[in-house]
């Protein structure tokens, strides 16, 4: 702040280089400087970035868990499929006809019908 101030009269005419106006307070304004301002912004950006990275990493962690669970599901589905195939094989007529016990059996015929 220098002394070269313009005085501005109520009519708006400058009489001096320093400008004065009625009803105004004067004095040094204290606050954050330009550097601090940028620093705070940078820090906020950094924090947001860290949160983003942390969330991203966390999400990726879930991806690995999902992948493992999906693998387990696939494995169980294959096992279920194999068991269904095994059950079908064991209960098939082709299997029964090759069974030693079944081969030695005689064909059943109805003995009669009650009317």
């Amino acid at each position, binding site marked *: 702040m220098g002394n070269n101030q313009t005085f501005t009269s109520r009519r708006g005419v400058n009489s001096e280089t320093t400008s004065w106006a009625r009803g105004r307070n004067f004095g040094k304004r204290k606050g954050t400087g330009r550097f601090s301002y940028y620093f705070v912004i940078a820090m906020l950006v950094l924090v947001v970035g860290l949160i983003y990275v942390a969330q991203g990493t966390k999400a990726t962690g879930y*991806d690995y868990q999902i*992948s493992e669970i999906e693998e387990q599901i696939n494995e169980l589905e*294959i096992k279920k*499929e194999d068991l269904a195939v095994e059950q079908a094989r064991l209960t098939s007529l082709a299997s029964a006809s090759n069974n030693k016990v079944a081969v030695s059996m005689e064909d059943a015929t109805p003995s009669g019908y009650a009317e």
Partner: protein
Amino acid sequence: MERKRVGFLKFCLFAAIFTIVARLFYIQIIQHDFYVAKASDEHVHENVIEAVRGKIYAMDGNEIVPIVLNETVYTVIFDPMIVNEEKSKEIFEKYAKDNLVAEWDDVFADKNRRYYVVAKGVKYEDAKKIVDELIEENVVGITFDKKTKRVYPEGQMASGLLGFVNEDGDGQYGVEGSFDKELSGIDGSLKAVRDVNGVVLSIGDENIETPAVDGEDVVLTIDRNIQTKVEKILNDYIEKTPATNASAIVMDPRTGEVLAMANVPTYDPAKYSEVEDARLFKNYVVDEPYEAASVCKTFTFTTAIDLGVMNANTTYYNEGSMMVDGLTFQNAYQGLRGTITMQQAFDYSLNTGSATALKLISGGEFNEVGRARLYDHLIKFGLGQATNIELYEEPGFIPKPNEYDWTMNFTYANMTFGQGMNLTMVQIASAVSGIINNGEYYQPTILAGKMQNGKFIKNEREKNTKQIVSVSTSEQMREMLWGTRSSKRNNGVDKPGYFIGGKTGTGQVVQADGSYSEASGEGEMIGSYIGFGGRDGELPEYFIMTKLWGKGQYLGGGEANQAFDDISNYLIDYLKIRPKV
């Protein structure tokens, strides 16, 4: 001097910064799309999610049982350059010896060959053990390619009906071929960012998943017990007669449902690639029209009765042969000369009898009106055209009544006993089923329904019936067909208390020169039989058609009749049909 140096350094610095900025501008702005695509190629992978092929079920009485399923197997591929020969050999010999498809010496003979299929069809459990051991032994360079294989727990049962699935996953022949669209489903896709291990990551906005739609599970009307038994009986007749082939169809005439559709010899659909004769893939019941001979007299007599010009007691004079359009045909049986009834003509399968029926249809003489009437009835019976069963079928052929200028009466006289028109077994079976079922014809079907989430959804068919003859005609034809089997009843083949009817057919075969095979006992003949059975006094519960043939072999309706007898007696027990006391 110093100012100059500083100036020079400043220039260099600005030049360097400018170069970097310019380069960055070029890479990030001008070449933006190129590098984005390149990065995307690195991280984003698109995979096909294969739809699971639908299973095929059949009936076991009232129970639904699987007859075609899927199994996950692996094809093992070696990179001989980096695979440890000794360790890998030892592991694979231990767990997948039966699946090896290559000789070890061949696999490692050329180490520059980076791709060698070593094993196929390795089951999951074995593959898992192999992988565990490979990891433990630190063996690398082996790829396991996951595949789905069709499994047939009933072995060769109904192979001609079911068809198979080829290496490309396409259904071929039979049910697999005709239901391929329903069974295949629709493949899905997964486009996603993956890490180095291939794990799908949820980062990025390029992940797109289109889920696969699995194929439908199809339930057939085929009863596996009846199918197995029919195939066994047909195989027995191939062993004890000169026949090399045999086919049969068993239907429920009250619904049109096919209970068995058999063709023997059969083949193993799991080893279809080993089949040398492609004719084994044919389903002769639906895709082989033939001249079915005297079984077709059933259609002629039905037409005459339905038009009110004949009944079983109508008489005519049998001369043993007949001349039409200047051409003569004869009866196979030369006895029974003189005035006889139509029932006798039917019993002895006299060609003059069925030709006389056509004369009656024509109003006394062979003419175009009679031909048109017979033709209209044959078409109404669904003959010479696709039945619309859910399988690939040949339509066959029936000459139109005014197709040729001369000898058309002779052609039609021949058609009355099954010559000159080509029909498939399924057409004949459906038509006769309709005739004996009070005239109510059901479109034949092999589709009982579908399985959805473990529940059976019945196949609801619309407009699948039509009245092809009157109830009275149906009753009379049942009696005529019953009459022809009197010898079977007298010999005790047919059990008392059951109403069983049928008709033989011994068909000559058209030779390469267009002439018919010898009608004597030495020429090539095809034996056929149509028949039905059920409780006496009630509508028939089953219909059976059998056919036996062999290249150059004589097979008469008699052999086919015996095969019918065996199937019929089995069905009476299996279906628990009570006799009328």
